[in-house]
């Protein structure tokens, strides 16, 4: 997030797109509703009529995969009505003319046609967003998980720049990170192209710094991304794959392919807290400690580094992941030992400029610090790009709308999208072990519009077969007016009736994010006894 969660409460207008906030980030959902109560206007652009729509002043029920068309339509309206922040654009941005040229053709009418909504609603939203002095954009995987995800994000950045909302309090563009420490995993260099603090592996000076710090020679070649790793593992090019605390057997697209790939991997190590679907395929399984059994830090979605503290001893012979990794590093010839996570953190601070001023002592004292925090006397950064953008001038990068890689056709007439439910978390590794949560949401399902259901003679609770070009699953139908007639929705949490058996592994070429949020699908009613064969079908 460029800004902080609590800044949302004081926003004048909040544009929520591709985020089912109240279910995926419930506490942020609550904060947005607090903002609404204080008078903020809420715009929601979503394929589903999510709970947040109740609070929305404008609801744009777009077809999955049409985000960029919508954003361009909004920008076109803002520019044609002269509502842009002209002064801000002049002083703080560049390449504005390119944006004007790109969105010129994208009138609200054109966008409305593509998105399947009313042009007037686009105009209302455009005016509302442009006229709010402090406008925040909140988005999530509904924007990124498309073959044009990166362009979707850029497009939102264009919109924010257009209205002068970058670098101000209660404004900004705010991706909501889905997992507790996905921010930290990125910050810490859990990425093929960057060391901790987003320092490029290709940069000789950086490489040198880390070689000195770690006492080894390092590669200057950008590594493989997750999807590429899984792909290469399947072809035998990756011989040893070490997976820590991830469950690609449920979370990755086109699961049949993933399973084959992992089975083909010569040596698979999985380190986790449960024997997950992925761990079951491993050659070595290492029992890790949960967050309750160790010390450390997490970095949340607003870049705030906060303490994790040990409440109980690890169960059985489990060890905290850091201990396991330290042991292995030692076995592999990297001799350095750490008495505690704090010592690791000290090393992190010493090589990561944005974490440079963060210490355990300060975290204990302040409760948390938001990076960038380069020095020990720096108070942390509440919102980014204050005064000027990090790169100097804010760069408009116009994005052209492209349809999803897979669009409905005669054989697969529906658009399928995926998402979360309130009661589960990711692949249910944790929530699946909690009775109450399972009781609230026991099994996979597919949401379908009532009119569409009627045409297929489907009623609530029927077993239906959902198929795509990748495979098919049998799940329970939920008939709901939340969706438009040509759209279906599945939660991605379940290993049985897994949505990702169906999703399209096509990647966004830049960020390498799979297109989970839009693929072509078909729905059929099946006889009851099919349910027993769900597993086999999968």
């Amino acid at each position, binding site marked *: 997030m460029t800004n902080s969660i609590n800044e949302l409460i004081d926003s004048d207008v909040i544009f929520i797109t591709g985020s089912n906030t109240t279910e995926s980030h419930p506490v942020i959902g609550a904060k947005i509703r607090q903002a609404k109560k204080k008078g903020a206007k809420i715009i929601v652009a979503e394929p589903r009529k999510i709970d947040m729509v109740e609070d929305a002043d404008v609801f744009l029920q777009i077809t999955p995969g049409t985000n960029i068309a919508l954003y361009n339509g909004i920008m076109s309206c803002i520019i044609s009505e002269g509502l842009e922040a002209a002064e801000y654009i002049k002083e703080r941005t560049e390449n504005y003319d390119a944006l004007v040229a790109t969105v010129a053709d994208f009138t609200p009418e054109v966008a409305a046609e593509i998105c399947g909504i009313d042009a007037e609603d686009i105009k209302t939203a455009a005016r509302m967003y442009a006229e709010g002095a402090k406008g925040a954009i909140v988005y999530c995987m509904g924007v990124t998980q498309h073959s044009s995800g990166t362009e979707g994000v850029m497009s939102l950045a264009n919109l924010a720049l257009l209205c002068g909302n970058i670098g101000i309090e209660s404004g900004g563009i705010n991706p909501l990170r889905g997992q507790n420490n996905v921010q930290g995993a990125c910050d810490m260099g859990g990425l093929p192209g960057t060391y901790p603090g987003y320092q490029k592996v290709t940069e000789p000076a950086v490489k040198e710094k880390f070689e000195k710090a770690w006492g080894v020679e390092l*590669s200057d070649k950008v590594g493989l991304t997750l999807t590429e790793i899984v792909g290469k593992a399947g072809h035998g090019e990756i011989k040893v794959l070490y997976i820590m605390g991830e469950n690609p057997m449920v979370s990755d697209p086109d699961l049949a392919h993933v399973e084959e790939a992992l089975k083909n991997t010569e040596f698979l190590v999985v380190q986790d807290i449960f024997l997950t679907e992925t761990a079951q395929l491993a050659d070595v399984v290492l029992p890790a400690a949960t967050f309750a059994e160790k010390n450390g830090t997490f970095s949340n979605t607003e870049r705030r580094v906060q303490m994790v503290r040990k409440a109980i001893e690890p169960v059985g012979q489990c060890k905290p992941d850091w201990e396991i990794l330290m042991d292995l590093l030692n076995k592999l010839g990297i001799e350095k030992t750490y008495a505690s996570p704090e010592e690791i953190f000290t090393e992190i601070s010493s090589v990561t400029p944005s974490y440079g001023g963060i210490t355990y002592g300060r975290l204990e004292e302040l409760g948390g610090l938001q990076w960038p925090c380069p020095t020990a006397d720096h108070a942390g950064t509440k919102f980014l790009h204050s005064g000027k953008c990090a790169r100097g001038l804010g760069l408009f990068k116009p994005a052209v709308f492209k349809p999803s890689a897979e669009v409905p056709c005669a054989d697969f007439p529906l658009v399928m999208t995926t998402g979360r439910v309130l009661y589960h978390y990711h692949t249910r590794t944790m929530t699946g072990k909690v009775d109450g949560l399972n009781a609230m949401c026991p099994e996979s399902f597919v949401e379908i519009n009532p009119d569409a259901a009627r045409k297929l003679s489907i009623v609530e609770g029927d077993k239906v077969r959902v198929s795509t070009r990748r495979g098919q699953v049998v799940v329970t139908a939920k008939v709901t007016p939340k969706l438009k007639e040509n759209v279906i929705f599945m939660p991605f949490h379940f290993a049985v009736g897994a949505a990702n058996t169906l999703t399209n592994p096509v990647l966004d070429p830049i960020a390498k994010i799979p297109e989970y949020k839009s693929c072509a699908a078909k729905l059929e009613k099946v006889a009851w006894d099919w349910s027993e064969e769900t597993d086999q079908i999968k």
Partner: protein
Amino acid sequence: MSMLNVTVDGQATQVAAGSAILDAANQLGIEIPTLCYLDMEKKFNQQAAACRICVVEVENRRNLAPACATPVMEGMIIKTDTERVHTARKIVVDLMLSDHPLDCLTCEQAGSCVLQDLCYQYGLEQTTFAGQRNDYPEDATNKFYSRNLNKCVACRRCVTVCSNFQNTKAIGFGDRGFNTHPVAPFDRGMDESTCVSCGNCVSVCPTGALLPKSKEKFRSWEISKTETTCSYCGVGCQMNLLTKGNKVVGVEPLNGAANDGLLCVKGKFGFNFINHPDRLTTPLVRKDGQLVEATWDEAYSLIADKVKATKAEFGSEALAGLSSARVTNEENYLFQKMVRAAFGTNSVDHCARL
């Protein structure tokens, strides 16, 4: 910000305009008991001011003033420790107790019940106002918590947190007079309401009226609390893990920078995986196609040997690692260090994109 001069119990102090009497007293270290007061409310005038336990004397005011919801004014002279205040508070506690069961011996909340503390403070073993008591059936329809309105003191914290902070608005107040009590719409079970089971009402309940459906029996004094960060989504809610022995038995929200005392259903109630019997407890290695228990040394040696051998035979690019958005910064750091420094490749990634 302008400062106002006030005197509390003879001690003069300056407080910021817009402060409540309670703030002024706290500033001087003078304790005023509270019950319905919700420190989440940023504006004191949104306080319910319903319980009336925090009443104090204010010079030139006809009646006693609730300290939590009365703004200080210039020159205000406040007395918190007079006979009149003491008597009034004692009667208020006595009245609450008169509509409350005396089952502290078996009540799960014993030891962390505000009413119990107040009775102790004011020396009330039992009520002096014996009379009719409300009698409601227990509502256990929610999967995560139960509601026993016989223990409700109608402080409104649950309704306030649900309506003003969580903003689900699943509950309100029903009936009037002596029968006033929190209700889900039409006074039906919680399961028929719009409740999203965030449990924030449970967290703020001062008595045993709202209790988590716990698998473990424990008394509050057997509990240790550990401040930590929630391990579900990326909001980074701060919370206390409540532990008894080596078991996590509960969660309570803290006023973290991101969550301000709120949690969601997963953070509040989704902790039973920690001590779940299905947890992996020993390393496993695959022998003859089966995963069998092994020692750490066996597992480590196997991995180290394989890594070294593969590196030697196929080069570093034949190795890769997937780090985790679930583990700590320190662990992510070590993981990428292992892949980069020990495996010799930059092929490290995690599921940020998923």
